[in-house]
């Protein structure tokens, strides 16, 4: 097991290296000039050239790549072209809202989706099942920002129960923290709920058709323990896999959700950086998100050994 973990962690190095080179070229070969944006609309061509020189953007592309990779290897993500602050500092300043939103969303989505999936599977073909599946289709089809606006209209403008936007750090109290996170969590979590609920239902239906479930039924095991203790536990591996894959969906959703709800997280940071072509920030955030995705997948793989004792690495 330890050898497997070490092997997987070592494999992340070439993966991250490829991501780094790909991201670098993707950004630097696409049009847009940070120097021109920094200088302002009425700046003279000469001052734009001067700024480009100060930023090192007039260096050959290969040299810029080598410098960046060398810094990356030593853990330095560079400095923001606009603010001059280290990218790691800027990301650290914005990490709490994003981590909070991601965690509350996963918690909300997994809890609600697994319950809905189990209920739907237990009532397959009935009204409850159709309702849950209809909800899942709707949840997957409606974009995050539309859900966000609808929630804002209902809960913030009409009912005045929850704030429209913003974020309160957890250090200022759990209740204010939650107060700001409820709507973004609901908006972002809906698609995630849909995805997990559908896979839970399908997997549960497969498991419920197994012989040992029929035997348990015949022996008179109560419905709830049978569903939760026997069926759900055996359906866990595909569900956990989808939760892991869904992290990519979550990362994309976080960027939109943070914009709609004006949450000062990493998503907003990268959106603003893209608009300004602040290359070090964009590159740094993509590297970190890629690293998170790789690690989550590793954790998902490792979790299989706990969920299914037959799996060994």
């Amino acid at each position: 097991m330890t050898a497997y973990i070490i092997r997987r962690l070592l494999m992340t190095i070439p993966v991250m290296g490829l991501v780094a080179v790909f991201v670098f070229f993707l950004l630097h070969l696409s049009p847009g000039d940070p120097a021109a944006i920094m200088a302002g609309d009425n700046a003279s061509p000469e001052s734009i050239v001067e700024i480009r020189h100060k930023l090192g953007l007039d260096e050959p592309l290969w040299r810029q790549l080598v410098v960046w990779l060398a810094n990356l290897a030593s853990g330095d993500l560079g400095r923001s072209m606009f603010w001059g602050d280290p990218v790691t500092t800027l990301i650290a300043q914005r990490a709490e809202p994003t981590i909070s939103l991601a965690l509350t969303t996963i918690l909300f989505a997994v809890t609600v989706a697994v319950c809905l999936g189990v209920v739907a599977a237990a009532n397959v073909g009935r009204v409850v099942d159709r309702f849950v599946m209809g909800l899942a289709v709707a949840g997957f089809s409606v974009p995050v920002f539309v859900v966000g606006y609808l929630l804002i209209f209902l809960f913030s403008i009409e009912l005045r129960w929850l704030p429209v936007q913003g974020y309160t750090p957890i250090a200022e109290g759990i209740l204010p923290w939650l107060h700001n996170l409820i709507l973004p969590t609901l908006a972002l979590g809906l698609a995630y709920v849909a995805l997990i609920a559908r896979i839970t239902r399908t997997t549960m239906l497969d498991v419920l058709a197994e012989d040992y479930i029929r035997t348990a039924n015949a022996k008179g095991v109560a419905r709830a323990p049978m569903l939760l203790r026997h069926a759900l536990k055996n359906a866990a591996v595909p569900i956990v896999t989808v939760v892991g894959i869904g992290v990519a969906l979550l990362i994309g959703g976080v960027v939109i959700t943070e914009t709609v709800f004006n949450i000062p997280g990493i998503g907003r940071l990268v959106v603003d950086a893209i608009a300004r072509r602040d290359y070090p920030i964009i590159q740094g955030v993509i590297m970190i998100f890629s690293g998170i995705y790789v690690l989550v997948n590793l954790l998902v793989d490792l979790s299989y050994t706990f969920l299914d004792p037959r799996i060994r690495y």
Partner: protein
Amino acid sequence: MKITRRTAIQTGLAASAILAAPSIVRGQARPSAARTIRAVMHGDIPTYDPIWTTANMAGYHGGMVYDTLFGIDGNQQPQPQMVGRHGVSDDKLTYTFELRDGLKWHDGSAVTTADILPSLKRWAARDGGGQHLMERVKDLAAKDEKTFSITLREPYGLVLDVLAKTNMPMCFMMRKKEAETDPMQKIDQVVGSGPFTLNLNETKPGTQYVYDRNPNYVPRAEAASGIAGGKIAKVDRVIMMNMPDAQTAVAALQAGEIDFYEVPPTDLLPQLESDRNIKIEVLNGLGNVGQVRLNYLHPPFDNVKARQAMLYLVKQSDVLKATFGDSKYVKQVSSYFGMGTPMENDANIDWFKGGQNIAKARELFKEAGYDGRPIVIMQATNIAVMSNTSLVIAQAMRQAGLNVQVEAMDWSNVVQRRASKAPPNQGGWNIFITWSGGAAIGNPILLSAHAATGDKAWFGWPSDAKHEELRNKWALAPTLDARKAVARELQANAWNFVPQLYYGQWVQPAAMRRNLRGVIPVAEIVPWWNAEKV
């Protein structure tokens, strides 16, 4: 140890209290909501150095933290601000200024001429108007800690106007330490002498910028007017927020989470107007003037006939309708200096009186020898007014039989590509759409887009010796009436050689909560002194 439900609840409550404690302490340190203005502005502050960039938001920041020697008042006249007594010699060559009493930097040190002179030099190195002034300056000298003089080579009627102007970069004064920074480098500390200080602990770059009242600021005695007069901070804190989603900003305003929204989209104005807690005000009466920049370096617009043809092609009412609908906030522009500015006039506007004339445009393009080569319009798709204008103009050009190629890209790509002098089929361009503030359009010197100095001019690189001669004549004109007379000559000439053309003028109404009072109407920036919540 056995954990009961009661101990679990008690532990949870204790943990919540511990977690909530910092917020209680912080809450006591923060100004109350009634003494705090939360304002969503049109964008993000790209840098804390308002001299280094021409970006407007940097100027908004500058207006809070820094002060100026002079300021334009509500009647567009320069008035002393940091300066107390001042005068000019009889030969109009030496201006003498004395700093008023009580001026202090945020670090507590006194403002002296040792700060002022390098500030003027650094600003002039970055600003077109400043350069125009400095070309005529023979000497800049300090007489003592409070008195300094500007000696000119020739009389120059714009000295005070240039020092007082509101278009970017404004002439902000900085400490000697920052003022001696290379003009091409950004300053690294924000220490001004203005009515507010930047609170870096509470500021979150990219999302919110927190400004606290400067208790040591000594305002002038006069009433606030424009960016002149007494800059009295009537609230303890102003938070300038960057909220990119317009729908969210409108909802936040309606819910009372913010007090001010600078640029509500036109289509959301009816929603705001119907809310009795919200009022709509136009703060910048001169608004913006939309510009169509033509590339002088390549056919067809290297030929004056083709440029004149564009005057007959662009139907401003169509362009404005495409973006603003039937808005009461727009008008068509016939004057080269915009509508409502002091320099507005009606010289040589027959092209405008006759309205769109496609047949005439076709004839002029023929005289220009247009050979059917593609005319490249750069369309900034992420900015509605630019995007829509590009399409409407392209359609009018196609009606005149021109081969138009609209190339879609985002604004930052336009900004990059417009610097290219290459032919349009090799990465260059023929037309791009932009806009400038009405106040700036009304000044032939201060707006870099007005220069017609060829290679040294703004993007499009127009060239016309007579235009330049007239700009200089305007700058030297001794009185307002004399300037107006030169402005007529400038316009008559401009509508002949067509350095650029306009697609309309619009004002941007701002939306605010009804209890927000005293926001001063100024062109180019939104000042927060004088504003209060009642």
